[in-house]
């Protein structure tokens, strides 16, 4: 986790984006300084005004670049040890519908459509289910299959057995998927 690679080297350059904004994004990826005025502290490092930093963050929130802002929890440290990636082979014409329904389940933390890679990999829908224990996750999955009537869809449950690196959404370094 937490390699100290300078994130700014790797932070994507949006076309026309001012350098200061890119520096700000790289700083933000490392987290807010825990001081009474974190935006002011970031502003000083990025060479911006506090008001401008807050405006940037609000704009990135509004346009979806920032998905959420808050405490990024390492679930394993809390004892949430079971992490299942459930993969499904869903007929193409149904995949968006099934994806949207799975995503509404509270136990499902992520749900993505990805390409099949035949013949090795026939699965085109991925979701994550976390829980304190494996039996609990399998119980949640069984309930979802029942509720959404997904019994006839081919699926596999890939529990993680070891985290070699757990990084919550940065580009170079440490997270939780």
């Amino acid at each position: 986790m937490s390699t100290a690679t300078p994130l700014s080297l790797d932070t994507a350059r949006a076309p026309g984006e001012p350098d200061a904004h890119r520096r700000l994004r790289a700083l933000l990826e490392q987290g807010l300084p825990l001081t009474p005025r974190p935006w002011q502290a970031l502003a000083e490092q990025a060479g911006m005004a506090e008001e401008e930093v807050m405006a940037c963050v609000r704009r990135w929130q509004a346009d979806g670049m920032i998905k959420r802002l808050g405490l990024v929890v390492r679930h394993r440290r809390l004892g949430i040890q079971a992490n299942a990636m459930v993969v499904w082979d869903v007929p193409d014409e149904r995949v968006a519908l099934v994806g949207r329904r799975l995503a509404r389940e509270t136990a499902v933390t992520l749900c993505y459509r990805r390409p099949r890679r035949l013949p090795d990999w026939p699965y085109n829908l991925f979701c994550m289910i976390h829980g304190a224990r494996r039996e609990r996750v399998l119980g949640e999955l069984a309930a979802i299959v029942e509720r959404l009537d997904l019994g006839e869809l081919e699926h596999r449950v890939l529990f993680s057995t070891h985290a070699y690196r757990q990084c919550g959404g940065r580009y170079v370094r440490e997270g939780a998927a």
Partner: protein
Amino acid sequence: MHCQAPKNQARDLDTLDRRLIDSYQRGLPVCTRPFHTVAERLGTSEAEVIARLECLQARGVLSRVGPVFDHARAGASLLAAVAVPEAERDAFAELINAAPGVNHNYAREHDYNLWFVMTAPDEPELEARLETLESRLGLPILRLPMLEGFHIDLSFPIPWAELERT
């Protein structure tokens, strides 16, 4: 509260720690003194909130306090998998961790037993990184880019009561 790092820390977190985690995995206010606002809402002081966050971070319960960016928009990334001999899995995982841009790397129960996220500033660099890593590993990498996201919220309600029992 002591700043140490045992394995399952849920039991050691008191009500204020839990309320912070439950209330602020999202929605940290963007205002001049955000921790002051948080403190007012939780009925405590700004200094206490900052101290708690520092401690949770020092203990590794939090990786950070800040934004979660949308990978797809902040750069190029994809989910990748490799099938490596199980007996040599640790060594292969180290090679993967050593590659630039890798930010999750998990062993999973499947023939494709190592799963990681590869990131890069742009698509050509992403492919270049994957090709370099493929030649280091001597194995093909399954490339599974996101085509459509149905759920982009990484926050997740913590089942405190259940964790107490484990």
